[in-house]
């Protein structure tokens, strides 16, 4: 089982988060909405916010009773939304809890525990949320703004610095204050206009203060609640976690949208993708993500439905080390070299053969499903002869051994990626071959995942690395491409520093005007396509299969931005035909 090494951090280009940046402004057009804010106030917002589909009313009538088994190749690590950051945990957390806002499959943000989209002040700095009335935890306690305040304080207040939340610095950097003027209201104030705020943080599942509030900060990291939540606010409540095997959930009678049809939901850990597919076939598992290599084999299984593949904001990219102090930096400093190397890659063949046609060749750094996506210029097809002539023109002539050289330096470098991921393994070898064909010697090295992360973010000892990344719904990609992220520990391990790009990214994150942002991101994508410091090979697709006995999981309710989150919302309406 080749891919069995648990790549618990991102499995096969798994999509991590469900945050959306598609807010209500989009439907109205930026300027109009902005004007409407200042004029219309709360009623207008409520109308916009609830204008989208509200799931409960549209659900078909189902039959009560029965269970569903989903499978994942990783086990969860923690059920505390403040602490966890891996996909497997997020998946289950979103079945147990909800946040102020939740995502629709297409990325739209809609109210969750909040009764409506937040009211935003005219200066764009204050967000006021109102909670739905009469919310209850599964143990009967009321869910109020105290819980919301508490949850965010865990990630923001200095009192809770000892809590190991990976979201603190983002909030400390950008948030001014959080207050709860009454039991139904929360007010967030940001320091500057912060466009990604709602997408990044407003979906954070709310944790119960009455359970965790009495604990000291340090104790929260190891609280029993994290592995056995005693109170939940989502469609299900926790029953038990058999470590390494499965998590069992049961219906939450107090869920505000109503009770689920399902009695029980189980998420089972399986060793690898092949086993997952086998168990879909035998019926041991009802629902799960399918590896591209196995997708076609499920077409003929008559007990299974395959959802239509949908684009996801996950992408696979490689990056050139641009540090001038490193030997590779000297190779890749010339933009023409970077572009030529990209031209020499047949990315369509990669999508067809490595992903079995279930991937899209990337034409820009933003995913095709993002509202910000444009077909950026220049574009790159597969042009081996052009690549060769570009390299010749840049002074890299082929030496007697067939390897290009310039000024005594050969175009020789290594490429790293993590062990245990079949697609990346194949991609790296294809890249090696493609580049060998044009006189460039690239040696693949497969290393363990922690090693890879350290080399990329800290030691920066690599020439080229290949990795997958899951971006949020917000088009802001500063984490990868801003020069501030090039500091030790940041993901901009390839040290791309471009003042123009920095400026565009900062401007685009500092305005709430969708139209303006779109323009800026168009500029951004063109800039990135010109510079290609880290070319994206393909954008992946979400491939899911579900047993025919399950009703209510389809492409309408489940898609790009809620694969691993915001699940309570539609799982409430999922039912099974045999009620077993």
């Amino acid at each position, binding site marked *: 089982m080749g891919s069995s090494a*648990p790549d618990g951090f991102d499995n096969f280009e798994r999509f991590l988060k469900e945050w959306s940046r598609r807010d209500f402004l989009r439907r109205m057009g930026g300027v109009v909405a902005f004007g409407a804010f200042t004029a219309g106030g709360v009623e207008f917002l409520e109308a916009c916010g609830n204008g989208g589909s509200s799931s409960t009313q549209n659900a078909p009538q189902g039959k009560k009773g029965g269970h569903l088994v989903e499978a994942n190749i990783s086990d969860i690590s923690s059920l505390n939304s403040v602490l966890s950051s891996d996909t497997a945990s997020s998946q289950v957390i979103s079945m147990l809890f909800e946040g102020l806002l939740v995502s629709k499959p297409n990325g739209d943000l809609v109210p969750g525990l909040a009764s409506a989209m937040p009211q935003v002040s005219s200066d764009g700095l204050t967000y006021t949320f109102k909670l739905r009335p009469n919310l209850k935890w599964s143990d009967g306690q009321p869910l109020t703004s105290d819980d919301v305040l508490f949850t965010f304080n865990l990630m923001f207040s200095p009192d809770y610095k000892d809590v190991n939340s990976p*979201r*603190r610095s983002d909030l400390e950097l950008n948030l001014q204050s959080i207050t709860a003027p009454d039991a139904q209201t929360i007010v967030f104030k940001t320091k500057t206009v912060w466009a990604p705020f709602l997408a990044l943080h407003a979906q954070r599942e709310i944790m119960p203060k009455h359970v965790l509030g009495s604990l000291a900060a340090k104790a929260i990291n190891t609280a029993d609640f994290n592995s056995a939540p005693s109170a939940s606010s989502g469609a299900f409540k926790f029953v038990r976690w058999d470590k390494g095997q499965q998590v069992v959930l049961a219906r939450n009678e107090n869920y505000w949208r109503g009770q689920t049809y399902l009695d029980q939901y189980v998420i089972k*850990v399986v060793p690898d993708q092949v086993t997952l597919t086998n168990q879909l076939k*035998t019926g041991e598992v009802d629902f799960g993500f399918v590896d591209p290599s196995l997708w076609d084999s499920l077409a003929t299984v008559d007990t299974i439905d395959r959802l239509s593949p949908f684009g996801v904001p996950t992408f696979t990219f490689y990056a050139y080390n641009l540090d001038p102090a490193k030997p590779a930096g000297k190779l890749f400093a010339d933009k023409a070299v970077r572009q030529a190397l990209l031209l020499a890659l047949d990315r369509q063949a990669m999508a067809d053969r490595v992903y079995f046609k279930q991937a899209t060749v990337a034409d820009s750094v933003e995913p095709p499903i993002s509202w910000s996506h444009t077909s950026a210029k220049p574009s790159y097809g597969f042009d081996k002869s052009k690549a060769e002539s570009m390299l010749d023109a840049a002074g890299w002539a082929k030496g007697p051994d067939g390897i290009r050289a310039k000024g005594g330096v050969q175009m020789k470098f290594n490429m790293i990626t993590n062990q245990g991921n079949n697609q990346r393994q194949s991609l790296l070898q294809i890249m090696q071959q493609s580049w060998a064909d044009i006189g460039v010697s690239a040696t693949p090295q497969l290393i*363990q995942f922690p090693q890879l*992360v350290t080399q990329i973010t800290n030691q920066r000892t690599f020439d080229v690395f290949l990795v997958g990344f899951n971006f949020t719904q917000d088009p802001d990609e500063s984490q990868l491409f801003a020069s501030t992220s090039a500091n030790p*520990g940041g993901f901009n391990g390839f040290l791309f520093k471009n003042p123009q790009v920095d400026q565009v990214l900062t401007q685009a994150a500092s305005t709430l005007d969708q139209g303006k942002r779109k323009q800026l991101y168009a500029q951004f994508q063109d800039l990135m396509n010109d510079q290609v410091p880290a070319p994206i090979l393909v954008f992946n697709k979400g491939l899911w299969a579900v047993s025919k006995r399950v009703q209510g999981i389809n492409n309408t309710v489940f898609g790009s931005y809620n694969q691993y989150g915001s699940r309570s919302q539609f799982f409430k309406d999922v039912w099974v035909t045999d009620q077993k």
Partner: protein
Amino acid sequence: MLAKYLLRRFAAAIPVILGVTILTFLVMHATAGNYVPGLAYNPDLKPADIARIKANLGLDRPIWLQYVTWLGGMLHGDFGRSLIDGSPVMSHILERLPNTLELTITAILLGVLISIPLGVTGALRRGGKVDNFFTVVSTTGFAIPQFWLGLILILFFSVQLHAWGLPWLPSSGAYAAFGGGDPLDRLLHLIMPAVVLSFFYLSVWSRFVRSSMVEVLSQDYVRTARAKGMAERRVVYLHALRNAVVPLVTLVGLELPALVSGGLVVEVVFGWPGIGRLLYERALQLDYTTVMGITTFAALLVVLGNLVADVLYALLDPRIRYS
């Protein structure tokens, strides 16, 4: 005499355990520097967060201090908490250990139960068809990669049988995700992994039983019993078998350390929730504390096993005892 010997060996075991823990610690820390186990590689994470969490977990203190702290805890029976999920390491071990024992003990039992008749038959009918078949089986078991055997069994007994509409075996886990847990369900899940694991044992042991049996059968006292006119059956089963099998016990005893980590590949192939698989997964994720806990625990078992083996060996040959 024996007591003194035991005491010596026991005292010698302590530096061994310490050595294991120190080596484990060093290897874990030498691998990836700033890596904080359990944090996903995703855009949320800022360097400041990683640094802060690292400090909270005590991972930024000097290595020797971290080790000493861990050691102090260990001496109080506290193996610390997993760096990935915060649960106590001891609870992880105690939860998974029974599963591993279930698997390895079953495999050992299967191995013994099959190798004895196989070996005896081979010895009684030396050179015959059965013996040749037996040689093939035993050398085969020694030659198949475990993970390959596992895959083939899964493909047939799980996928293919199901495709044909016949009763089939589940392909992973220790019990069914829903509605399982009863003894029959657990047994069904146990069959394939235990068979794969026992294949190896029974190859070794059946060979051994056979050669041991051959030897015993040629001993004087057996010839005497035959000459006295004892029924062949009694000769074989009463005298020879008993003597031939006793050394097998020693062999089985030597497998004590393997009880914990021997089934690792099988656990990984079949998704068995055991300790071997936990060690493998957590070591790859650099969950230092869990790994330290498991290796120490396993080392303790190995030392214990060696002690047992040494005692048995010493009982067999007084000359080998430490002077």
